[in-house]
């Protein structure tokens, strides 16, 4: 169970350094993305193709996974299936033990953050070294990633310099210049790359047709981890499968422009099983479910599995860019996290996340695989309301009362009159003063005359007191359940005719 987004967000929003770091970093990457996306005339067609490819993969997932298993096996790899995080971690630990390995080098991977692999390996006496610069920063400071792509986005250079001087560059005087900081990390990591006998990676894509695994990264550390050690283990979420090799053509255009705002990704590693004279001598692929088949069962929610972890939705989100990633209490922060986390973990484990959005739609606009995040958020709000909340929940009670008030004209008009007195169903709305609106904002007075009262007054003045044609027609065609109406009127509401 989590603390919940509103509370965690409140804490994070109070951190001025975080606000400045996040605001600056997301604004920069947002602007860069917009520039490189604008260069392509066929961007919208690419998005549609990307969405189509992923939708096809998910619609035929069992078939694609069996194809992937067969082709990886044919290429000399070994495929392991993991129902949950514990099974996935156990596979990795067992392979390490089989090779007598007590340390591994890791490529940045959110799947293994999700399974908490590093902690599981540590419990088995195996040290995992993160080799992505930002992951290293997070690991050294015992912190948690706050961004899918830039895990240390919440840290600035000064904070990183201080951290390195405390840890990997003890006794040295560093400057906060990025080259100097990178150099310190490089010296530390190089030694580990050369020493490690086992590498662990995630996967951006796994091609069913050929058994090819694709890892996309920017620092070259991934290339080192996937080629230098004798044994390579890849942990891949089952939704990462692509049916055909040619599908990479679309994905490798969409991903870099959306994530790092680059035209082409710097280090794209593709490997198929093992090769006799090159790279690792053993390759293991761990296919991770961990709640994904449950997500697939939800017709609306399943589009979240199309995600290619580009993080464009995070950078464009006005909520994320202010709260940062930790407020989401998940390895998947931001808008995609708000729809993925509750589905993967269970709605009762993260019931506030579907509301961590103003539904502004900026995320959907930039999503390279067209995940309609606002619609999924609304869908999940409905599921939380129906499946998790009690019908006696105060909000549910208010909403039922308001819905009843809006069900007939007479009740609605009564509610309007009561609202003027600060009473009745409308005053109970979740936007009313009791709900905290007025802590920071003034609330407008309810005007003495509603629009409909003005309209009637005007019509009657024009027609000399006669009710207008339209109104008579509407009232006749209204067909309200008269029993209920009588009940309402009897309950003390004046008939609407007295409004004048």
């Amino acid at each position: 169970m989590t603390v919940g987004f509103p509370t965690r967000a409140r804490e994070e929003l109070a951190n001025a350094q975080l606000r400045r770091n996040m605001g600056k970093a997301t604004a920069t990457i947002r602007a860069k993305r917009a520039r490189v996306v604008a260069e392509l005339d066929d961007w919208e067609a690419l998005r549609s193709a990307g969405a189509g490819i992923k939708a096809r993969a998910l619609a035929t997932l069992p078939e694609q996974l069996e194809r992937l298993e067969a082709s990886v096996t044919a290429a000399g790899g070994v495929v392991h299936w993991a129902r949950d995080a514990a099974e996935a971690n156990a596979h990795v630990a067992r392979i390490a033990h089989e090779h007598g390995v007590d340390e591994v080098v890791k490529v940045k991977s959110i799947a293994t953050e999700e399974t908490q692999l590093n902690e599981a390996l540590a419990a088995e006496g195996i040290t995992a070294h993160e080799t992505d610069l930002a992951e290293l920063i997070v690991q050294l400071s015992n912190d948690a990633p706050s961004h899918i792509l830039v895990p240390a986005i919440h840290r600035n250079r000064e904070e990183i310099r201080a951290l390195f001087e405390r840890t990997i560059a003890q006794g040295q005087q560093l400057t906060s210049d990025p080259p100097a900081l990178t150099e310190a990390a490089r010296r530390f990591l190089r030694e580990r790359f050369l020493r490690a006998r086992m590498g662990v990676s995630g996967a951006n894509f796994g091609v069913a047709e050929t058994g090819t695994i694709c890892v996309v990264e920017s620092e070259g550390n991934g290339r080192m981890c996937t080629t230098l050690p004798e044994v390579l283990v890849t942990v891949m979420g089952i939704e990462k499968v692509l049916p055909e090799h040619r599908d990479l053509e679309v994905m490798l255009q969409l991903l870099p422009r959306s994530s790092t705002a680059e035209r082409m990704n710097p280090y794209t590693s593709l490997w198929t099983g093992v090769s006799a004279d090159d790279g690792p001598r053993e390759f293991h692929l761990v296919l991770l479910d961990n709640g994904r088949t449950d997500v697939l069962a939800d017709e609306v929610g399943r589009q979240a599995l199309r995600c290619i972890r580009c993080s464009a939705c995070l950078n464009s989100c006005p909520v994320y860019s202010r709260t940062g990633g930790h407020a989401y209490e998940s390895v998947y922060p931001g808008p995609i996290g708000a729809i993925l986390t509750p589905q993967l973990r269970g709605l009762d484990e993260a019931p506030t996340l579907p509301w961590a959005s103003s539904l502004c739609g900026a995320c959907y606009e930039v999503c390279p695989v067209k995940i309609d995040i606002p619609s999924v958020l609304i869908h999940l709000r409905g599921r939380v309301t129906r499946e998790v909340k009690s019908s006696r929940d105060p909000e549910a009670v208010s909403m039922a009362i308001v819905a009843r008030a809006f069900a007939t004209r007479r009740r609605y008009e009564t509610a309007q009159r009561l609202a003027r007195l600060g009473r009745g169903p409308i005053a109970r709305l979740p936007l009313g003063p009791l709900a905290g609106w007025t802590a920071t904002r003034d609330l407008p007075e309810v005007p003495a005359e509603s629009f409909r009262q003005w309209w009637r007054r005007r019509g009657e003045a024009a027609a000399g007191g006669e009710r207008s044609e339209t109104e008579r027609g509407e009232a006749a065609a209204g067909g309200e359940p008269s029993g209920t109406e009588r009940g309402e009127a009897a309950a003390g509401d004046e008939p609407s005719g007295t409004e004048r």
Partner: protein
Amino acid sequence: MRIALFITCFNDTLFPGTGRAVVEVLERLGHEVDFPVEQTCCGQMHGNSGYQPEATELARRFVRVFGDAERIVSPSGSCAAMVREQYPSLARLAGDEQLGRDVAALGERTFEFSELLTDELGVEDVGAVFPHRVTYHPTCHSLRLLNVGDKPLRLLRAVRDIDLVELPEAQECCGFGGTFAVKNADTSMAMLGDKLRHVRETLAEVVVAGDNSCLMHMGGALRRERAGVRTMHLAEVLASRGA
């Protein structure tokens, strides 16, 4: 042209001046406005808050009330978007195919105010005079669900004596988001703070938008701060003759 006004419960109750302004502009342009009095609420608040069955009932009511209207106009981007973009998913969720057909047909005839003026009625200059410094905030649902683009700005540019200044980071959400403004009040305020900082940078007297809900959020804080900046619905600027 005969145009049915979908006022929205929010405007009907809290911002009747916006409805009067819509009537004034449309009648000034020679059109006939009809107000189906049986209308109540489109169900957006229920739909967006997780109460889809309640929202679906209100959608059915909307179809009964507006079913015969030739053209429907709403001075609210998000309520127009509810009808056009969200009713179909409510019908799907309810498994109600008839409702699905009805709302699809109705959606084609439902327009936000600036869309109706520019696309359906083909006007940009509605004869308004507004001698004030103004900045325009494009509300998220008009921008991203309805794709109104620069239609409201084209209408504003045609207003005589207006001093229209561009709002920095205009397309970023103001932080209202319906119940988001109270459920996540802290985050909402953080967003609003930045929005109002940009508003002040323009030195505008008036912030204009096509949705009174976002304006109530912005205006509520501007009044609390005694900022000397007022909020106004686009329709009210377009109805103005120089006051």
